[in-house]
Structure formats: structure tokens, C-alpha cells
């Protein structure tokens, strides 16, 4: 409980900065409007205007909050929680691509890490490519993945998941290579004295030892996966998903819509990372490896 006060202080500071920023950024438009209408705005009037514009440069928190409520809770109350105008629907679309890409990325990353740890040739040949793959801007490669997969008849969820996978396998590979190599020389010698096979050493020593690294990688991986899914939604023509909402919002200057999609994405990412953190705590505690 002693953390509540500092956390609240930070939250309050963020909101204060946000509201102040909204005033500063939206004031020119408010003044323009007033000048054209020939009215003189008092300071409270100016502030009220900057916090309630239709297409503000920076929407105020309560505007974003209202928009989110309008597209989530209010939709549910109307029984249309899953309509195409609902942010829940778009979040779900992004979430499903994120999870599929995340699972694919975790499997791919783990397999590559196992190969790298057990095979010297793979260690020397694969790792440079893994690193090179992450130096390519994902924004440049995402449309090509969509186009190429579309050309071979794959569309919908999978192309987006592929982009998620492309981003999320990297932290898994790096973390798992380190994790699978984390047993000490003594522990490996001990396995040798028992004449344990490579598979026995893997399942009984290397894999359990890698768990703290695995979960840390998963947290980074799932966040990267969400970013990948959103980016994957941009070149699809803004059909559905949080990425589509971002794109549509920027087409029509709907900053409130952009911000509500951004906040939604942040909440989704936080929830996913928090969920993995909870599983991590339970697993490592039961394994006697909690830090």
C-alpha cells in the first residue's frame, strides 16, 4: 500500500501535463475561431474550448475517456458490444492476430534457440540472420508480407500474425539462447558424470533452468507482437482492428478516435504483460526460482 501515493502522484502529474498540453496545442484553433466570429475569449472560455473541440490537435483525457466509453461500455449496454463500430470488436481482431503471432513467434524462437544451443553450425550461421532480420524497418516489410501472402491466397488473420511473429520471435531467441546456456559448468559436468544424453540434459536441466529467461522474453515478445499486429493492419486498407482505427482516424483527422485506439492498445499490452507476469510469478515460485 505504500506504493499508492507515489503512483497516484505520477498519474496526477501525467493528467496535469496532458490537460496543459491540450490547452497549449488547441488554443490557436480556438483563437482563430473566436477571431472569425469576432468574439473575445476569456481565459476560462479558452480553456473550456480547448478541452471540447471536435478535432483537437491533442484531445483532453476526458474526451478520450468518453470516446472509449461510447465505443465499449455503452455499446455493450445497447447489446451491440461486437458491432463494427465497437472498439471491443476492433481490439478483439487485433488481439487474435497478436496471440496467433505470439504463439508462432514463441514456437519459432524456442526452436531456433534449441538449434543454436545444440548445433555449432546453427550457432554461427543463424544468429547473424536473426539479428539482421530486426534491423529491417518493419513498416517497410509489412506491406510486402501482406502482398506476397495475399498473392498466394493467404489473407485475413495469418498475414498479420506473420508480422507479429516476425517481431516477437527475436526476444524469444535471444532470451532462450541465454537461458538454455545458463546451467553452470558444474551442473553440466555433473550430468556428464551420470552419462546423461543430450536430450536428458535438455529436459531435466537446460529447459527448467531457462524458465526465468523464458518469461522475461515472453513479456517483451507479447508487446512486440501487439505492435506487429497493429502495423499489419495498416496496409490492409483499414478493414478492422486497432491499426485500422488508427489509420481511419488519421484519414479523417479524428484525433479522439486515434487516441482512444492508442489507449486501448496500451491497455491491451499492459494486460497481456501483466498476465504473463502473473504466470511467471506462480511458475517460478513453485520451481523455487523466484527472485
Amino acid at each position, binding site marked *: 500500500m505504500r506504493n499508492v501515493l507515489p503512483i497516484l502522484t505520477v498519474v496526477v502529474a501525467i493528467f496535469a501535463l496532458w490537460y496543459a498540453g491540450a490547452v497549449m496545442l488547441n488554443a490557436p484553433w480556438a483563437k482563430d475561431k473566436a477571431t472569425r466570429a469576432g468574439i473575445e475569449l476569456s481565459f476560462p472560455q479558452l480553456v473550456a474550448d480547448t478541452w471540447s473541440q471536435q478535432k483537437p490537435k491533442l484531445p483532453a483525457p476526458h474526451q478520450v475517456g468518453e470516446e472509449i466509453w461510447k465505443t465499449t461500455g455503452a455499446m455493450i449496454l445497447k447489446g451491440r458490444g461486437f458491432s463494427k463500430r465497437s472498439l471491443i470488436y476492433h481490439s478483439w481482431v487485433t488481439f487474435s492476430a497478436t496471440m496467433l503471432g505470439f504463439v508462432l513467434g514463441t514456437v519459432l524462437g524456442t526452436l531456433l534457440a534449441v538449434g543454436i544451443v545444440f548445433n555449432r553450425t546453427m550457432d554461427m550461421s543463424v544468429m547473424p540472420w536473426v539479428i539482421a532480420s530486426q534491423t529491417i524497418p518493419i513498416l517497410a516489410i509489412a506491406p510486402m508480407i501482406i502482398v506476397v501472402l495475399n498473392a498466394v491466397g493467404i489473407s485475413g488473420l495469418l498475414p498479420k500474425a506473420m508480422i507479429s511473429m516476425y517481431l516477437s520471435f527475436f526476444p524469444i531467441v535471444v532470451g532462450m539462447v541465454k537461458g538454455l546456456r545458463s546451467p*553452470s559448468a*558444474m*551442473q553440466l*559436468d*555433473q*550430468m*556428464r*558424470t*551420470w*552419462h*546423461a544424453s543430450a536430450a*536428458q540434459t535438455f529436459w*531435466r*536441466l537446460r529447459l*527448467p533452468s531457462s524458465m526465468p529467461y523464458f518469461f522475461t522474453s515472453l513479456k517483451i515478445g507479447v508487446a512486440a507482437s501487439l505492435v506487429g499486429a497493429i502495423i499489419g493492419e495498416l496496409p490492409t486498407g483499414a478493414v478492422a482492428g486497432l491499426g485500422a482505427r488508427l489509420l481511419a482516424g488519421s484519414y479523417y483527422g479524428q484525433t479522439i478516435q486515434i487516441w482512444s485506439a492508442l489507449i486501448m492498445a496500451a491497455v491491451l499490452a499492459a494486460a497481456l504483460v501483466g498476465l504473463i507476469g502473473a504466470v511467471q510469478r506462480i511458475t517460478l515460485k*513453485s*520451481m*523455487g*526460482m523466484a527472485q
Partner: protein
Amino acid sequence: MSDIVISAKDLSLTFQTNDGPIHALKDINLDVHRGEFVSFIGPSGCGKTTFLRVMADLEQQTAGTIAVNGTTPEEARRARAYGYVFQAAGLYPWRTIGGNIRLPLEIMGYDKADQNTRVAKVLKLVELAGFENKFPWQLSGGMQQRASIARALAFDADLLLMDEPFGALDEIVRDHLNEQLLQLWKLTNKTICFVTHSIPEAVYLSTKIVVMSPRPGRIADVIDSPLPRDRPLDIRDTPEFIEVAHRVRDGLRAGHADD
């Protein structure tokens, strides 16, 4: 089976490093007989641990020969002919004490029922009966090391290689474990090779003390202990004990004199 468990002839091991070769072992000749308790004592860098690791096939000699149970160390390792106890207990935190002792048994393919009886037997042997379902962090350092000895005793190996197993423990716990180890040795008829840098520990435990000296790692003296096999802790106050300790100390000093 022959009476000789370990036989080293002109054994040498040279590590190639960036600072030039390091002669970890040089012309080692030694026989260890079945049922002996042999201690290797010497200052750090004298090659005592390296010698033990060569026996265990964790290092390979660069010259000379060594036989373990009449075969090469590699064959002996593949035949699981020895149990090795490291300086750290090295128990897996995600396994219970019983699970840790079961680990080599699983690897070696003992069946479930056999595993259970063996775990129960060795836990009793090291006086940890009732701790089977505890986790390592619930045990003291001395108890953890006892569990790691139990793990090395659980499978059928007549040879026990111990690399400073009590080095990290305090004097009182150490005395207790030394006493227990002698009991174990008497009960199990194992051949034990024991690396230490404590003179009282070496003299108290061993039937044969191998004094080693560093740079290059050589055997300075081999002392056959005149002490009886039954050794209460207060044997350490007898003139015989003090005399053997003296000879060990002399051997260690001689090894230091020529560098």
C-alpha cells in the same frame, strides 16, 4: 575384478593457455586399492582437483595412462562406475530432495519401484529420512551437501570421487559430516577419493594421504595412515594422529620449498 580401482602411470596434463602451457599434472604414479579412503591434499594449483577430474573423464590427460576399474576413464564414466560429489551441493531448486536423488536414477533408467527404495535407503544412510519431500531451500548447507552425497550413493557405483565436498561449510558442521562420512564408508565398502586442503580432515578420514605440490602438479609424498579404521573424533588428540599430521605438513612444506 582386480583389487586396484585406479591406476595412474606417468600421468601428465598440460593446459595450453595464452600465457603458455600450464603443467597441471606431471608424471603422476599412483594406485588406489579397493576399499581405500584416499585423500588428496595440497595448496591450490597443485592439480588435486584436476587429477580427480581426469579419473572422472571430465579432463583428458596429455601423456601417460590411467585406468579406472581396469578400463579407461571414459568407459568407466559410460558404465556409471563412480559417483562424483562437487564442492557445491548443486541440487535443483525445482526438485524436492527425493526428486534430486532420483535424478541420476531416472537418467540411468532404474524402474520406479527401485528408485523409491533406493531413495529411501540413501536418505536414511545420510540421516535425512523424512526430508524426501522438502525442497533444497528448506535445508541448511550441511544438509544440502548430505543430500548431494546421498545422490552420489543412490546408484551402483563402488567408487566415490569427492571434490572438497565440505569446503564451504563451517568447522562444526564439517566435523559432524566427516564422522558421518566415515560411517558411510564403513557401511558401503566404497572406495573413496577425497580432495581437501584441510590437514586434520585428510588425516582423520584417510587410509592413504597423497600430498601434492604445485607448478608442476606432482605427488610429493604418499602416506599410509597407521590409524585404525574405527576413528572416534577424539582420535585427533592421539600422538599417532599428530605424527601423521606432521608428516603431511612436512610434505606440503617440501613442495613449497622449490618454487
